[in-house]
């Protein structure tokens, strides 16, 4: 049996916290950008202009067909070089964090747009008609009438997706970026205490995600008392 030795964790806590901050920053910005870009995609998808709707459908289906790991590898290995040449960024600049953020935001937007599309479609058609009858333009009726109701219905789903996204940020491991998991792995590897650090990381993720999902469940009951 393994002899547990948790002694390397207390000293490593500041380093792990730095990692956690990276995980949270990536999550937060991907949620914000993902929702904004996802909303635009959803509106394009539902638009009567064929070109827009095809573009949005193609974008969403492409990102949903490809594994996140693959998207991240694109953004770590290929895109920086491409962008670097395009904007004359000196070679060797560390673009891992910005690449990770861009990759997550564009990837998550595809998933958010599907949630938002369903949310928009769940608002009854009469609302849009009523807004138009009141003389509002399409943009106004979307912004002032449809989207506020759609988002209210979607809050639990959007938050659940954010929890999944937070878990997925651990995949920046493929770029050796020290997010929370990467930091835990590094400490465990350095001290020969991989078993303890991996179990610790798992426990931390569990506590955070489980509590967050319980809060979402409560919200759901408040908004949609079954």
């Amino acid at each position, binding site marked *: *049996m*393994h002899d547990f030795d948790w002694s390397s964790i207390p000293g490593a806590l500041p380093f792990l916290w730095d990692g956690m901050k990276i995980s949270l920053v990536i999550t937060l910005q991907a949620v914000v950008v993902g929702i904004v870009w996802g909303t635009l995609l959803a509106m394009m998808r539902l638009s009567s202009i064929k070109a827009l709707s095809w573009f949005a459908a193609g974008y969403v289906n*492409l990102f949903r*067909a*490809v*594994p*996140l*790991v*693959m998207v991240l*590898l*694109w953004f770590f*290995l*290929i895109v920086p*070089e*491409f962008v670097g*040449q*395009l904007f004359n960024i000196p070679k060797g600049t560390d673009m891992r964090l910005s690449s990770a953020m861009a990759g997550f935001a564009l990837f998550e937007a595809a998933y958010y747009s599907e949630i938002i599309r369903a949310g928009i479609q769940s608002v009854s058609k009469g609302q849009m008609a009523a807004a138009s009858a009141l003389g509002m333009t399409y943009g106004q009726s979307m912004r002032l009438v449809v989207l506020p109701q759609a988002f209210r219905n979607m809050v639990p789903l959007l938050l659940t997706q954010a929890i999944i996204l937070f*878990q*997925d940020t*651990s*995949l920046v*491991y*493929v770029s050796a970026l020290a997010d929370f*998991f990467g930091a835990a*792995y590094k400490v465990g590897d350095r001290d020969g205490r*991989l*078993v303890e650090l*991996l*179990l610790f*990381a*798992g426990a931390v*993720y*569990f506590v955070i*995600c*489980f509590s967050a*999902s319980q809060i979402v469940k409560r919200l759901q009951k408040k908004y949609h008392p079954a």
Partner: protein
Amino acid sequence: MGYQWNWGVFFQPSATGDDTYLGWMFAGFKMTIGLSLSAWVIALLLGALVGVLRTVPNKLLAGIATAYVELFRNIPLLVQLFIWYFVLPELLPESLGNAFKQSHPVLQQFFASMVCLGLFTSARVAEQVRSGINSLPKGQKNAGLALGFTLPQTYRFVMLPMAFRLVVPPLTSEFLNIFKNSAVCSTIGLLELAAQGRQLVDYTAQPYESFIAVTLAYIAINVVVMTLMHKFERRIAVPGYIGGK
């Protein structure tokens, strides 16, 4: 920007000499398919069992099933994979742990990946099965019991045959996910499709061709699985329900 496209690179003999780079990709493709399908079997069997248990009146059984689902849903897949691969062999009784560590490295990677993906997905399958069972009208269960069936018989003959058919469409997306999630297993060195893509970049110095090819392979898997499942969904749909005839 001066990039030299060279799609012919896939037909060049690989660095080890015994295969072409296309052969490498195909090996990764087979690994991805084999891993995903075997993990899917585990996910379906365990997921169906746990999903059913979550709906039974016995508080203890339902509680265990709920704990199982929450455990596997709230820890990132990557962390679970590392725990299966690096931690579990250390916690097993010494003889068993050593047997694992002395087996062929590919076998270790495959086994850890299969169990990890299987259990991870089983929690999601269980949620779908549970909501399938819960979506049945209450009258079905009551009618079964009123006819003198025991509770297990009601499940066996009345509820599950319906629930399993209703749950096929939502399971399609979990089935698609398992192929995508299998790419995570490249992190422990398993040479599946994504890992082969990385290797191709290193060996051929043709990053664009390598990644485009691997990405297209994933899209192809996605399209094929979706088409097949769509046919299956239509055959199995319950008449009178959404999607049924």
